[in-house]
């Protein structure tokens, strides 16, 4: 049995390749020296303390939180309806429609960004947080649709039929039967779409005008070597936030699959 062990060793090496580069950010964010290199001079929390004093950073954080929240609501609402249509009903052109909704995943970012900038200005929308929301909703939609599709996949349609047979109306059935079962899926979708928006850079870079989101703010700081430790501290917090949100989303997604059994 030598073959499986080489494969296993490769798998662990691969994990190191995946994780190690990212882990250097938090490691050096505690370094008291300003140059990102070994040996580490000493340990400090100063860079984290200084984050709170920067007004533009705080403003960018609020911008990102606001955009992310609106994007999560919009894309999950549209995704909810679409996912239900795709799982529950059969209609002509359905596969085309499902493919269309997945399209934002594969269009190169620069093309989405440049073409949306041109479109929004043509429509008289100045680059602002509003245009970022519109763009991010477009990018987040495939994620919400695929998460909610699997939530509806696990949903037993006979529950709804039973409810109709008992004389309960369409909306009441949706509210009292369907919604509770797919709620974990909705929560998972909102967390994922929020994260997609929160981390997205290229579209925001083109569409945010003079209202930077957090990644756009980071981009503006990267050029200045003196700002590096701050970026590291901020980046580490963002990495941790993204991972926590995603683990939480995964937890809810699992629950939505498990609820079918009950």
């Amino acid at each position, binding site marked *: 049995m030598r*073959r499986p062990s080489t494969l*296993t060793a*490769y*798998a662990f090496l*691969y994990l190191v*390749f*995946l994780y190690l*580069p*990212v882990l*250097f*950010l938090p490691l050096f964010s505690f370094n008291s020296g300003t*140059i*990102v*290199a*070994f*040996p580490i001079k000493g340990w400090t929390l100063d860079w984290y303390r200084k984050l709170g004093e920067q007004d533009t950073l705080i403003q960018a954080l609020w911008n990102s939180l606001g955009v992310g929240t609106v994007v999560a609501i919009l894309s999950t609402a*549209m*995704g909810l*309806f*679409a996912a*239900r*249509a*795709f799982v*529950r*009903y*059969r*209609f002509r052109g359905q596969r085309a429609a499902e493919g*269309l*909704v997945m*399209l*934002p995943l*594969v*269009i*190169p*970012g*620069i*093309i989405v960004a*440049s*073409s*949306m900038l*041109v*479109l929004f200005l*043509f429509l008289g929308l100045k680059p602002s947080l509003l245009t970022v929301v*519109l763009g991010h909703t477009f990018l987040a*939609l495939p994620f919400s649709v695929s998460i909610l599709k699997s939530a509806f996949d696990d949903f037993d349609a006979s529950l709804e039929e039973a409810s109709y047979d008992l004389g309960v109306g369409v909306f009441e059935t949706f509210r009292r039967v369907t919604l509770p079962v797919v709620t974990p899926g909705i929560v998972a979708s909102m967390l994922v779409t929020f994260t997609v928006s*929160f*981390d997205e*850079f*290229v579209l925001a870079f*083109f569409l945010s005008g003079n209202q930077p989101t957090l*990644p756009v703010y*980071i981009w503006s700081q990267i050029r200045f070597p003196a700002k590096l430790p701050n970026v590291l501290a901020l*980046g580490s917090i*963002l*990495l941790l936030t*993204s*991972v926590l*949100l*995603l683990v939480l989303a*995964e937890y809810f997604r699992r629950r939505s699959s498990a609820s079918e059994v009950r």
Partner: protein
Amino acid sequence: MIFRSEASRGYTLSAPATAYVGFLVAAPLVILVAYSFWTQSYVTLDKTPTLKNYRDAFADPLVRHLMLRSIWIAGAVTAVTVALAYPIAYFIAMKARKKTIWLLLITIPFWSSYLLRVFAWKLILGFNGVMNSALLMLGLIDEPLDFLLYNEFAVVLTLAHAWAPFAILPIYVSLQKIDPSLLEAATDLGNGPIRRFMRVTLPLTIPGIIAACLIIFIPTVGDYVTPALVGGSDGKMIANLIQVQFGAANNWPLGATLSLIAMLSVGFVAIVFVLTATRLGRRIK
């Protein structure tokens, strides 16, 4: 609700999402095409239709150079990423006991900010960076290596790291679908493990490999962040030139033209790739 057919309910419910995506795909495209036939001098837009932008773009050696380099880099990234990912997908699908844990471990890094992951590579590969300082400290080198950052190698490495999960998942799915009895049959017919892999497993996973290649290749051609941060002047790609037209150069019509050329080139290469790959797949079978 009995009055409305199933199909019409399907259309109504999916309409907001499909209309939204459809509009934001089609409308910018129409305007982009329109822009590509216009010209701009300083701030005024001249809407007389002309082919000047296309002539300029095709005549400019820089455009051709960057476009070809983008395709070459994206191709290299795709090949490297898929080659590295296949054994992992195979391991998770065939050997690993805790598949869901492995899948989760593979996807978590993808959820961290793309910008920050690229930035991390810039710090690692820099002249006074993490890698050089570590090697110096260990005494493996006497002076910092200067070929790590600001070239095509750095771009390919960074992108191969960024796209890893996208290659693993489609291949994993196609491996997962293989009927184990086919593998048993191959063994019973006297095929060794390598022959069995080449004649059964690999051909059956070709759809997964094609999907992985497309998912990586198409967005990579238009990547902006990685060449901008780790590419230096030798690693710049077409997206950087497009951004300049919309930013500093303020020549939107030319930017629109370049976007369209990039889109068509990507589409062309992707179609040729899918056609040859499927034909090749059939021949192996």
